[in-house]
């Protein structure tokens, strides 16, 4: 680690940047006001603790600008087992989160065109296109992304990441760890879990080499403990929506899930979610719903449509529809009970093989059916995401089952998580209108 980089990191990030951001958060928390264009007529004000979401993420990316040469940097997939890397002191970047951020800031198209110009097909995942585009052009809304020293790719969310990370490995010329997780058609078999466990064990050596130090198992246990605690809190926050009216909409969850994805295993993430849970419990006590006139309750399946969150949230709220549960935000909480602090590696192997995206289409239907019952839902919006095949395949059958067997309205909405070219406002509005009418 270079002295110059260290000084720059200390000065620009630790001394100035971080303090400024924290000061700013304190101020905005104290004088909390919803943004000017917030539709207070139909929506509850945003969560006050949301100012910390912004702080955590801003600090994370700011640290990223100065971190090369100070800490080892790993780029990882969203479902990757990061506990080992965390315990080794890696700075961890999630290209998918960066892709989502680009989508929400409406720059994903411009950046992914940089990849398309180089011949990457418009039919590959838009996160991958954004990431490769950003790699090729250095364009990013966060100033600068740190270069990876290590890539960690886990196939428990899709196979796409496998090819995508091969491309990254080629551009950055750094080691790539693949954790391959056999798809769980019904239950994972012993040899599947053994296979993942062996890969996790083998990954330790590579990670240690890149980090230049050896793994401390007590540190690992601590990370697993914090990771588990944060996930449990997140799960509790989502379950708070079983109350009527639902205190936090799924559109809010999409924003506030960033720390559970990006800062899992940090103690401040635990503090943050416990603060958020307090605020949500206050809302429940005072009967405050995220949507002011909550007439209908629905679930959201699949990734968010990042560039249309406001548009969709407002349209639905205008019609008294609150989106209260989602298979997507749930994915970062539902596995928390499987983590075992005493047997970190074994329990990681089990936990990381079981995300909803690595399980059968019938399992996802069951998850949605349970949500319909437990959250007392009237309908389901299934975002058919052309960039995410594993999440989307099966939705057509799932929709029919929800419709026929549970009798809830179910809409298949064709779009893409970050490529706005796959979204046509007029068509979406007319479909959503029909969907609302179906529930009435």
């Amino acid at each position, binding site marked *: 680690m270079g002295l110059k980089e260290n000084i720059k990191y200390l000065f620009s990030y630790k001394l100035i940047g971080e303090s400024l951001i924290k000061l700013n958060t304190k101020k905005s928390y104290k004088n909390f006001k919803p943004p000017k264009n917030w539709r207070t007529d139909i929506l509850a004000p945003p969560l006050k603790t949301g100012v910390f979401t912004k702080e955590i993420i801003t600090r994370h990316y700011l640290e990223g600008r100065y971190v090369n040469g100070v800490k080892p940097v790993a780029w990882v997939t969203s479902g990757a087992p990061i506990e080992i890397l965390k315990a080794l002191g890696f700075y961890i970047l999630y290209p998918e989160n960066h892709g989502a951020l680009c989508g929400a800031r409406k720059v994903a198209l411009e950046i992914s065109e940089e990849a398309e110009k*180089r*011949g*990457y*097909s418009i*039919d*590959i*995942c838009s996160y*991958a296109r954004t990431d490769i585009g950003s790699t090729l052009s250095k364009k990013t809304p966060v100033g600068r992304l740190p270069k990876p020293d290590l890539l960690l790719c886990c*196939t428990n969310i*899709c*196979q*796409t990441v*496998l*090819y*995508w990370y*091969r*491309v990254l*490995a*080629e551009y950055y010329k750094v080691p790539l760890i*693949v954790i*391959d997780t*056999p*798809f769980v*058609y*019904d239950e994972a*078999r012993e*040899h*599947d879990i*053994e*296979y993942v466990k*062996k*890969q996790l064990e*083998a990954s330790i050596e590579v990670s240690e080499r890149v980090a230049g130090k050896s793994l401390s198992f007590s540190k690992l246990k601590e990370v697993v403990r914090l990771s588990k605690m944060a996930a449990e809190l997140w799960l509790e926050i989502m379950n708070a929506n079983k109350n009527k009216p639902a205190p936090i909409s799924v559109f809010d969850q999409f924003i506030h899930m960033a720390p559970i994805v990006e800062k899992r295993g940090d103690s401040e993430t635990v503090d943050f979610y416990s603060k958020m849970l307090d605020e949500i419990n206050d809302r429940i006590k005072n009967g405050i719903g995220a949507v002011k006139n909550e007439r209908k309750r629905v679930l959201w399946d699949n990734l968010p449509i990042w560039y249309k969150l406001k548009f969709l949230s407002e349209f639905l709220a205008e019609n008294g529809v609150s989106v209260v549960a989602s298979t997507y935000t749930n994915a970062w909480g539902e596995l928390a009970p499987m983590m075992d602090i005493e047997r970190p590696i074994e329990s990681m192997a089990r936990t990381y093989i079981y995300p909803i995206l690595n399980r*059968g*289409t*019938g*399992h996802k*239907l069951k998850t949605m059916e349970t949500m319909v019952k437990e959250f007392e839902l009237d309908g389901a919006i299934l975002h*058919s995401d*052309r960039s995410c*095949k*594993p999440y*989307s*395949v*099966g*939705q*057509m*059958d799932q929709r029919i*089952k929800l419709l026929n067997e549970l009798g809830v309205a179910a809409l298949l909405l*064709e779009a893409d998580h970050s490529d706005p070219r796959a979204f046509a406002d007029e068509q979406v509005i007319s479909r959503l209108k029909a969907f609302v009418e179906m529930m009435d």
Partner: protein
Amino acid sequence: MLHIKIPTRREVIEKAKAEGKKIAAVYPIHYPRELFRAFNIQPIEVWGPPKTDTKKANAHLQSYICSVVQSGLAFYLEGGINVADIIVVPHSCDSLQGLGSIYKDFIKPKQELITIYLPREKNRENVEFLSKELKRIYKQLAEFTHFEPDREKLLEEIKKEEEIDVLVAKFYKSRENLPLSSREFYTILRAREYLPVELFKNILNYALLHSSSGKLKKTGIVISGLLPEPMEILDVIDEMDGFVALDDMACCMRRVYGEGSADDPFERMAERIVNSTPDPTKGSSVDERADFLKSLIDISGAKGVVFYNVKFCEPEYFYHPLLKDKLNESGIKSIVIETDINEPISQQTITRIKAFIEMLKEESRWA
């Protein structure tokens, strides 16, 4: 032009049924043929089929799923797989993973459903995992057929497949000396997807009898992708005085496995699949794939590479830009052609291929 009568899929199925064999309908890509043969099961692979009306699949699969998977499901829904006793879905990509899962959870076919998980990188642990996975499938097949082939039977079938792999390699090596059009060459080669071992062996041996010392004086092309469909593309290449010299196709070369070394039959089958040629669905590194393509060019003296890409096939898409660059650095031209196995090739695609071959010829004229 050779006069070789290759039995059709239907004929093979009827004959197998008459002999009391069971039929397995197998989706792409990798699976151990020998394991099924040891159970007296005739594997019949389902690569599409091309030119299928996929409207029935539209009730289960979104439009951004590739035509191979769309047709594969539509074919089942139209009753095309009714003759099969078993359906096998290898885990080759997200779309086939989804297909296997839809079968299991929603469509629930009357056939026995077998899924196979295939590990990615070439190493000892992966051989071990796959051999356990194959043992699991062995148990499933044993329960289904009430038959338990012993170690010798398994090894016997493995050796037969290993011999065929050697013969296929010879068939490839003789390509230039065989008086076959590209379409004929691939029709013979792809008969392996449904023929019993002996029959396929005879056909290859017969075709090899016709190899001569005279070489084809044509512009050689290497094709890369899933499968050479629509086959009209092969005709266009031939029409331009070109020919397919070698391939890097999932249905062909990528499944010519090497000999295994283990004595344990499961390990041996696993070794063969794990150590196959580079394959995007296994996430092979870009360098491995580029080197492999370059070696195909070197061996065959071909002039360029045509990437045949089935639209929406993500594993293939990711590699194209970097492969093109790496080939280019070695002075090898390549082109990406997008195909849909159910649609006739467009005039524009024909123009592209023709122009590509014109460019290659011009090049060698200047060289």
